[in-house]
């Protein structure tokens, strides 16, 4: 395959960036999108140029490191995959591909396509946990039965990989799918009930502080989420916040 890549290049957070065009040839349809970028980078390095920086690690769709806004969509045109599992067979010979970083004020660019998503971590620090110390004397795992339904729903919410595609896709750069998923996981389990009110209030407050936009329920995040996290989690977070405020 022969392709024309239009890639966002930005030397550092402080410098201005621009789209730079790179023609590339000899791409196999069996390559993953990141392997295609590896090919480009090895050519750039051999030519004495700086390679394109992008985040990636596990390359099996679970660590949430890889990002990229490809031809106007987070993680590219395929559904339910991260960029590392997007394969070149989804493109046609001769295509022009725009590759941009995930964009949001809360995700500043570090270099080229690498962005800083530590805002997500700080939201978790504010309440993404159950306050329990490690002791070895917690009660038996089977002491509180949890309905299969609740356990499965909690699991579905917990599959979020924290990649930030929801923020990148949202026209408002809202992080509510991410926060809603974490709030939901704990809200659905009996262990999470004790701190439920504080958790949702603290996490939402931190989310607002980070400069994410508001949710206008376009549903784009759910469509682009590589793990298919449901909008229901945002509804649940909204309910949890109402409940928490009514309690006072």
């Amino acid at each position, binding site marked *: 395959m022969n392709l024309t890549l239009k890639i966002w290049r930005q030397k550092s957070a402080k410098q201005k960036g621009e789209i730079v065009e790179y023609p590339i040839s000899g791409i196999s349809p069996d390559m993953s999108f990141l392997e295609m970028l590896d090919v480009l980078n090895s050519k750039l390095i051999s030519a004495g140029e700086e390679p394109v920086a992008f985040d990636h690690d596990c390359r099996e769709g679970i660590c949430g490191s890889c990002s990229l806004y490809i031809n106007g969509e987070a993680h590219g045109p395929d559904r339910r995959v991260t960029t590392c599992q997007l394969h070149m067979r989804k493109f046609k010979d001769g295509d022009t591909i725009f590759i941009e970083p995930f964009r949001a*004020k809360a995700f500043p660019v570090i270099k080229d396509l690498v962005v800083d998503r530590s805002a997500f971590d700080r939201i978790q620090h504010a309440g993404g946990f159950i306050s329990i110390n490690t002791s070895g004397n917690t009660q038996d795992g089977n002491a509180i039965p949890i309905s299969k339904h609740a356990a499965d729903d909690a699991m579905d919410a917990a599959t979020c990989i924290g990649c930030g595609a929801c923020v990148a896709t949202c026209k408002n750069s*809202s992080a509510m799918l991410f926060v809603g998923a974490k709030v939901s996981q704990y809200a659905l389990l009996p262990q999470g009930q004790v701190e439920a009110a504080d958790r949702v209030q603290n996490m*939402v407050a931190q989310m*607002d502080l980070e400069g994410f936009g*508001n949710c*206008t329920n376009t*549903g784009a995040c759910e*469509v682009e989420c590589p793990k298919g996290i449901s909008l229901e989690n945002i509804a649940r977070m*909204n*309910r949890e916040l109402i409940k928490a405020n009514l309690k006072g």
Partner: protein
Amino acid sequence: MSSFLKSSIGRKIAMALSAFFLMVFILQHFAINILSVFNPELFNEISHFMGNNPLVQFVLQPVLIFGVVFHFAMGFILEYKNRVSRTVTYAVNKGNANSTWMSRNMIYSGGFILIFLVIHFIDFWIPEMNTKYIVGDSSGLLADGSDYRYYEELQEKFIPLWRVVLYCIGFVFLSLHLLHGFNSAFQSVGANNKYTKSLKSFGKAYATLVPLGFIVIALFHFFNNVH
């Protein structure tokens, strides 16, 4: 409560609550207006009642005005906040791949509805206020006193073609706004359960039928003008 209204989700819920109120109002408005097509006498009587009942005039009307202003003001504030949350925009963005046009353009459909509302106020509400509270005529009767004036005033307004067209466009935007807004409001207050699916269909029906009904009323009076 003030901290609740400062939080992103608090604002979103307030937006939804004002939307519910406005949707109920629109339905009520529609119910009265459609009477003008079938039963001008009843239309006149209800219009007179609405225009002179102190509860409607001095409690519900201010609440309504507050609701409208709040919904618009909050809408613009949120839009501004959402825009500044992405300072550098994408070179290529395929919004239509993952969301509807209506959901992405609430600010434009809402903005047009605001323009429509201004004209609508100039057309009906301001003359009404003038007649009742400045001129001081609360009789609700025509100048010759033969009948209530409301039906006749309504018909008169739909004589010029430009206004009919403008109103129809206004209702189209109302429909687009509601097509997303109706269900969005329910999602915002956290309603997402086994009724969601039926509610979605109901929302679509509401969002198309009610504005369509308003269009029918406007066209009816344009084509059946007795004056």
